[in-house]
């Protein structure tokens, strides 16, 4: 068949849409480069958790609190969840900056579908979360923490899984707050999540009031599940309910705001 005549309906109809809604590797690679260029993101998600871990782990024997020893491994997992949370939230919250700059609108003039865009943002958030976990675990390994190899792997994967919950949270906040400094707005919230969810100090060592609030905080379930391969004992179904509940809440909220944002009005 000969090529359609230029300028005819046939020629216009013959133009193709991109595969996978425009989702592609080049886009991801340039996004990674852009993330690394952002000094604040790098400091916040890679350096802060690392420093916090070095401060909190104390020495090889761990820290004493209320007569109980918190092992460096327990602290490391908590901080890894913290890093994954910070990284994924700020990754997701990048949509806020991109909306404020009009980049999202610019992308709507291209074949990139909104779903492909969100998929790229979630992937970037999870990648940043993974990097943060790996940094904390590398420092942990060099500071003499000893765990069975399978426990290293399982706890790292579970800590990383936290980034999915918080990528949704970041997207939700990103669509909610039209600001170029969205992380400054949600930073304190993340701090409260971390304290009450037992990331720095395990929940059972927190003051009674905080212990009562803890199960309702989004980090509670993910932190407990991430430490489970290390600590063992009884598995509390509340942990799983917490994870599923917050994933659903953040996911649905992000989806609702995303729909509102991309609806052709």
């Amino acid at each position, binding site marked *: 068949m000969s090529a*359609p*005549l230029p300028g005819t309906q046939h020629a216009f109809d013959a133009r193709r849409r991109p595969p996978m809604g425009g989702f592609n590797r080049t886009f991801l690679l340039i996004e990674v480069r852009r993330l690394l260029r952002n000094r604040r993101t790098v400091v916040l998600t890679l350096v802060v958790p690392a420093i916090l871990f070095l401060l909190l782990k104390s020495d090889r024997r761990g820290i004493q609190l209320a007569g109980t020893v918190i092992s460096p491994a327990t602290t490391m997992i908590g901080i890894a969840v913290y890093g994954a949370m910070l990284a994924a939230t700020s990754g997701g919250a990048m949509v806020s900056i991109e909306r404020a700059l009009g980049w999202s609108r*610019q992308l709507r*003039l*291209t074949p990139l579908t909104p779903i492909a865009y969100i998929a790229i943002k979630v992937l970037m958030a999870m990648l940043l979360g993974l990097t943060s976990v790996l940094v904390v675990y590398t420092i942990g390994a060099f500071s003499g923490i000893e765990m069975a190899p399978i426990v290293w792997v399982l706890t790292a994967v579970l800590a990383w899984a936290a980034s999915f919950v918080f990528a949704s949270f970041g997207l939700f906040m990103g669509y909610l707050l039209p600001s170029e400094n969205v992380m400054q707005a949600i930073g304190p919230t993340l701090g409260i999540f971390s304290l009450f969810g037992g990331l720095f100090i395990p929940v059972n060592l927190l003051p009674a009031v905080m212990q009562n609030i803890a199960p309702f905080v989004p980090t509670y379930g993910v932190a407990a599940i991430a430490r489970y391969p290390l600590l063992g004992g009884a598995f509390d179904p509340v942990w799983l309910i917490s994870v599923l509940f917050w994933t659903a809440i953040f996911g649905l909220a992000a989806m609702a705001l995303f729909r509102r944002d991309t609806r052709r*009005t």
Partner: protein
Amino acid sequence: MNLAVAAEAPGRPATTTPAAVDLSGVHRTFGAIRAVDGIDLHLELGEIAALLGPNGAGKTTTIDMILGLSQPDQGTVTVLGMAPSEAISRGLIAAVLQTGGLLKDLTVRETVRLTASVFATARPVDEVLERAGIDGIGDRLVRACSGGEQQRLRFALALLPDPALMVLDEPTAGMDVEGRRDFWTAIRRDAAQGRTVLFATHYLEEADAYADRIILLRQGRIVADGTAAEVRNLSTGRSVRATLPDADQATLSALPGVRSVEIRGDRVLIQSLDSDSVARYLLGSTAAHDVEIVAHNLEEAFLALTGDGSPG
């Protein structure tokens, strides 16, 4: 015209040429404001048309509907024989919007590469950089680019899919004179290859200098549509001056298209929508000499058509 009508018919015959843009009975309100209040617009392929009007005339609202960024409350919008969103996903329309829309922490080249990656097929990165006149600043961060450079970057992005229709919304707003000239040079060079271009502007001289056709908007309606010369004539026509002793005011006023006749001694000043007939009459049937025909400039036409003391 007939071909374009055929293209809209069911079945879309493959070899016909569709309209570049077809708006029919389009209305769009925002609360109590009728931003677009009944627009019919038919743009043929290859035309370079300007949407001219004061702020609030409905230019951006019209463009947003052509780009599929918003939907009309009433009426239909077709671009190249298909829905705007369909044309966007096939890379058939591209747009350069006023401001924003760029990531400050990417370089110029990265921005182009990133955008190129989402199209099924795209022109080479180096080619669009060169055609937009920014091949020398590929490694510069967007935040370090001037307003004019950023606008040429937006133009480079718009060139990527090799679109059949290029839409520009106030593309030179906020640029200095030199930036505007460079920008339009790039656009003109590109349009010479047959691309359809629709641009909104409130700079009269831009519409006059770069468009084959001017569509004048006022309060959400088209008040004039034609070549720059036609639009000029629509409002005030031209003035014809001549030396004519003993001119007869009544006879002159009765000529076709004449709107006013002023007699000052031997000089007559006639405002007419049909200056040719007036000149023909003066030279052929009277003793008039020193006949001058002066066109009103577009600015006067613009003010006459969009002003009327009503808020634009």
